[in-house]
């Protein structure tokens, strides 16, 4: 009986408290006065966001640019045409649209759309993600040739391209895979969008950027004078996906319009090192096949090493996440709780969330990172293993052909070919 009374009493108090606080919320501390002089109160302005139809215009422009480029590269075989289209893309997607929306960053939106039930991906972002990949699946990396503003700005300043040694190209070529993997991991754990944060050129498009962005951008442009399109070849995470699509594309551009006459005139025309020389098969075919099989058998070993290394990194990686970072910080340095200059800790303390709750959240996120970095490491092991296989095997080739994975379809090699249709 006593317990029942207590319960009722508690309920009444609770109800009273709720009503009281609701009343307090709806009433102003200083009620609005009633003016005698006929003062009319101004409206709070709310300037509109960009008109929605214009977003669809962006998609239409992208589609048009891609179609024109495909025609220019595959049918017209015109470097000049590609150049002017890329200049247009730079103006439109770069300086007019100021770098957002962009296909490179849309990878993150797609991943977030899949993992986060509260996030609905805008249709335009999804189309920006899919369209270049679909084109790449049939016609190669047309998007890189002249629709990507990031590529276009580098393409225009590649004045004195030097040829990098093959081994360096291969090693640097691993970075995009790592970048893509990291970006997906950090989005999947709802930590941040690193591709956008470290976009080197968006600052130029906006004429306004944080310091690190500007430094990064100027550095890339300076390097880009001598190493053609460094961001595209050695960093762009979207380029990895485009490369996979382009590798197996059925109508990829050819250097020669008909039969190659082995004149070697195109050999040095590619600033990106994406032209493959003819290779004759050496040794016995059977032993070569055996060798390839051995390499493939070693592949799981690479994946294992990568996965192990990756899972060792998960504690460091998880600090990219702000919740984990904050929890770690407070546990390792309890004195920050009293630091009035640490805004994050101060806010956390003032919001009244308990330390246990924060730690529980951080533990869940760190668990996600544990799985994620294991997968990331395994993926990197697979990538390294596969590129070693590609380095140590021959693929018989009779003509000079574009390397479909890395070829950016820029059409620079075409004018060098003396063969006419």
């Amino acid at each position, binding site marked *: 009986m006593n317990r029942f009374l207590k319960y009722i009493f508690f309920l009444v108090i609770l109800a009273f408290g709720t009503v009281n606080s609701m009343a307090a*919320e709806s009433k*102003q*501390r*200083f009620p*609005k*006065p009633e*003016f005698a*002089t006929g*003062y009319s*109160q*101004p*409206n*709070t*302005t*709310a*300037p509109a*966001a*960009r008109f*929605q139809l214009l977003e669809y215009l962006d998609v239409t422009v992208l589609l048009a640019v891609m179609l024109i480029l495909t025609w220019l590269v595959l049918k017209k075989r015109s470097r000049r045409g590609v150049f002017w289209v890329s200049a247009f893309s730079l103006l439109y997607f770069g300086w007019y649209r*100021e770098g*957002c929306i*962009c296909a490179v*960053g849309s990878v*993150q*939106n*797609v991943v977030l*759309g*899949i993992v986060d*039930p509260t996030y*609905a*991906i*805008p*249709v*335009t972002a*999804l189309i920006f993600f*899919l369209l270049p*990949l*679909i084109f790449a*699946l049939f016609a190669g990396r047309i998007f890189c040739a002249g629709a990507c503003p990031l590529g276009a700005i580098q393409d225009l300043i590649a004045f004195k391209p030097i040829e990098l040694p093959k081994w360096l190209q291969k090693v640097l070529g691993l970075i995009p895979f790592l970048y893509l993997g990291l970006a997906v991991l950090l989005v999947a754990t709802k930590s*941040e969008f690193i591709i*956008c*944060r470290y976009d080197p050129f968006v600052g130029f498009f*906006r004429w*306004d*950027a*944080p310091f690190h*962005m500007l430094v990064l951008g100027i550095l890339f442009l300076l390097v880009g004078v001598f190493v053609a399109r460094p961001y595209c070849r050695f960093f762009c995470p979207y380029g990895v996906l485009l490369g*996979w*699509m382009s590798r*197996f*594309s*059925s109508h990829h551009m050819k250097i020669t319009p008909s039969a190659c006459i082995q004149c070697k005139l195109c050999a040095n025309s590619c600033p990106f090192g994406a032209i493959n020389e003819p290779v004759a098969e050496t040794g016995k*075919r059977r032993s070569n096949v055996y060798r390839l099989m051995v390499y493939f058998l070693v592949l799981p070993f690479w994946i294992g090493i990568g996965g192990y290394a990756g899972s060792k990194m998960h504690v460091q990686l998880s600090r990219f996440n*702000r919740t984990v970072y904050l929890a770690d910080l407070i546990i390792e340095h309890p004195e920050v709780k009293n630091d009035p200059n640490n*805004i*994050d800790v*101060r*806010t956390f303390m*003032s*919001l009244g969330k308990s330390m246990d709750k924060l730690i529980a959240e951080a533990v869940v996120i760190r668990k996600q990172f544990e799985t994620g970095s294991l997968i990331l490491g395994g993926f990197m092991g697979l990538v390294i293993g596969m590129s070693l296989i590609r380095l140590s095997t021959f693929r018989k080739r009779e003509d000079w052909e574009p390397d479909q994975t890395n070829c950016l379809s820029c059409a620079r090699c075409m004018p060098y070919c003396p063969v006419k249709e």
Partner: protein
Amino acid sequence: MQDNSEPKNIERRRFIRNGMQLALAGTLVGVAALSVKKTRASGMVWQIDPFKCVQCGRCATECVRMPSAVKCVHAYNLCGYCDLCGGYLKPDPNARSTAAENQLCPTAAIQRRFIEDPFYEYVIDENLCIGCAKCVAGCTSFGNGSLHLQIRHNLCKNCNECAIARVCPAEAISRIPADKPYQIKGGFRKTPAKDKG
């Protein structure tokens, strides 16, 4: 022997290529199908929930734009038109006047106008406002909280990930549908669930 295997070779390569092409196309369709289920036709924009904001001052420094696309807005309906305004005047001002020494705002972006005794109107000049939230803190702690921060969409670049949202200690900035791009106090209540009904 060598010559005989040649067409076979090319045939095999084509087979592998077509197979891989099909597999990749399938993957793309899969990703598209997964995403299409929850796409939205209208875009998303970033906005500050004024009830979550803790006035830390990062909006002024972290925005990719300089000055920030975050500005202080005034919900006049909530304003008490006080003479002693916690958002306009410094704590313990020398006088309740428009003298620079008494103003809390570092850029003098708030204009104080006399209406009738003892009421004053406060209007924000957004060209001067840098979004530092000093006035918001003052108004929220000493007044009605009618001054609050909002992302102005005529200035915002709508970055894929808002640079301020990434570091907002109160996680007050989130994506909201572009057809309702503001969360201005007064119309926008602390309990959005009730507001919808």
